[in-house]
């Protein structure tokens, strides 16, 4: 059931544009959601699902698939959009986001949505689950890798550092964490609410290999994931420097866009800014290439 199909780097920006379009449409339609932190992690998730991870949209529970844990579970709109683009469920379903009886919950639910590997929403818990999955792969002598996206504000939770200590101690080199370091949390700049710096030093001191990347640069993300895969004896964290609300000028860097509805006129302006995707449809198999790309092992 393995589907090692990947897009070329030049195809990724158009996917990212479509994902941003979906995110804005979902949050606009539902009247609730988290635009800022959803827009900041678009390139990270697009790279994971279209270049890096071995997954099977036709068999979402394929036992040997790579796992992804969205520890910052409020960026659900991004994960749903990427999963729909990847073919896990119809793109049309995205507009059921947050509606009663929908498979697309406000925070991700592994029992409801095809392709979601862990339920999250209460910040700080996802990295521990990712550690358990990575340890399970080692105990079961399985080849799959585990990826976990954290928020920067989320790493104020103590459990993140319990998990960091655990992964370092267990030398979980099949685990890659990515921090969406967009520098802004609900109440204001992270540096004011509860500063994290020296942030990369913290991860290193817990036994992690650290790679800093521009979280909106596909080439850097791809090479960062490659370095993580090649690292032996330690887990890797990609500290991805990002912009909260990326792609929509009036949302960028603004704490007030962490969680709020998008008004009709704001929605129109936002769509104009991100630009219309060249093809407003899900990626078909015709556009997926058998990847000489990142995901081979």
């Amino acid at each position, binding site marked *: 059931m393995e589907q090692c199909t990947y897009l070329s780097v030049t195809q990724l920006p158009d996917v990212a544009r479509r994902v941003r379009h979906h995110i804005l449409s979902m949050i606009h339609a539902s009247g609730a959601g988290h635009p800022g932190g959803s827009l900041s992690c678009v390139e990270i998730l697009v790279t994971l699902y279209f270049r890096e991870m071995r997954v099977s949209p036709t068999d979402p529970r394929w*036992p040997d698939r790579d796992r992804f844990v969205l520890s910052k579970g409020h960026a659900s709109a991004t994960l749903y959009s990427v999963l729909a683009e990847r073919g896990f469920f119809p793109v049309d379903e995205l507009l059921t986001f947050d509606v009663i009886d929908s498979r697309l919950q406000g925070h991700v639910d592994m*029992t409801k949505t095809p392709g979601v590997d862990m339920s999250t929403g209460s910040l700080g818990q996802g990295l521990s*689950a990712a*550690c358990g999955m990575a*340890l399970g792969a080692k105990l079961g002598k399985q080849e799959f890798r585990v990826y976990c996206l954290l928020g920067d504000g989320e790493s104020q939770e103590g459990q993140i550092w319990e998990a960091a200590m655990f992964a370092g101690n267990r030398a979980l080199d099949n685990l890659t964490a990515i921090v969406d370091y967009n520098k802004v949390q609900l109440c204001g700049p992270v540096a004011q609410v509860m500063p994290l710096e020296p942030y990369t030093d913290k991860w290193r001191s817990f036994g992690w290999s650290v790679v800093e990347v521009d979280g909106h640069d596909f080439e850097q993300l791809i090479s960062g994931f490659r370095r993580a895969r090649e690292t032996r004896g330690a887990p890797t964290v990609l500290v991805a420097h990002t912009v909260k609300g990326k792609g929509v000028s009036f949302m960028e860097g603004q704490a007030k866009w962490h969680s709020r509805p998008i008004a009709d006129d704001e929605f129109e302006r936002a769509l104009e800014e991100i630009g219309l995707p060249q093809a407003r449809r899900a990626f078909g198999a015709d556009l997926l290439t058998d990847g000489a790309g990142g995901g081979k092992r």
Partner: protein
Amino acid sequence: MSIGVRESIRDAFGDALVELGRKDPRVVVLDADLAESTRSAKFAKQFPARFIECGIAEQNMVGVAAGLASVGFVPFVTTFCVFASKRVYDQVSISVAYPRLNVKVCGAYTGLFTGKTGATHQAIEDLALMRAVPNMTVIEPIDAREAALAVRYAARTPGPVYLRIARDAYPVISDPAAEQACDAERDGGANGLPRFMKARTLADGDDVAIIAMGTMVHAALAARDALREKGVVPRVVAVSCLKPIDEAGIVEAAAETGAVVTVENHSIIGGLGGACAEVLGEQCPVPLKRVGIRDVFGESGSDADLARKYGLTADHIAQACLEVLATKAGRGGVGGSARIERAGACRREL
């Protein structure tokens, strides 16, 4: 195990984990620097590769267990009850119970009886907390034999389980036949749950039903002996599974005796007493008294002294029985005739 001999419940728990580890390579055990106390050290010794020492970091431990369960393992998480419930409540709720992951959360050292530790290590709220979590099964065995049964039952039943394991040795009184029956009733049998998971009568009587949980069944049986000398014969009913609770069994005991005393090594709020009050209030209102810790924190002391001071002895149970009898239908209590009608109605519905 022979009937009546005192056997350590936590040792039986540890031995059961080892037995399980031999049979099922998917079983893993996680502990947070308490393996000697919880007896998960027995498993660690036999299966070091499948024992995961998490250090003093229970929140991460529960999350790691959730991740392991999601990729096909059967994790048993062991620590003290206070940490397995209060310390990790959100992790158990969101990372385990919400996604219905196959994690067995095992709390050792129940209620006030925690070995002279004082209030910080006494688990008087864990049953109330765990019972409130959707998808959670809550079990407290009455003796060593049942502890082993409970481990086996938890392992083969998909989904989250909270297993409450007493520290000390108690006489083995559970039905030896239940052991084979439990294995025969692999999928819960026709009636949904294996025998040891149902409310079941340990000693007959019709004057009042003492519904007791976990190791408090032993004090309940002693209370019955004392009351018989006064001409009162209580029925003693054991409830080892607090959730899903055997509603029919509790209603039956209430309807047939007309008065109920609940007994637990836990706060009277939200545990067995709370659960029985809810069931009986809706289905079969009868006079009810709850024996348990009366909404206060405990303190250091021997188990016997703690039981005396906080109301958990056979004497306290016997006294509660006499008090509830005084208000029972047909015994001159207020509203007696109305109660007789209600109890009759419960009986007809059975």
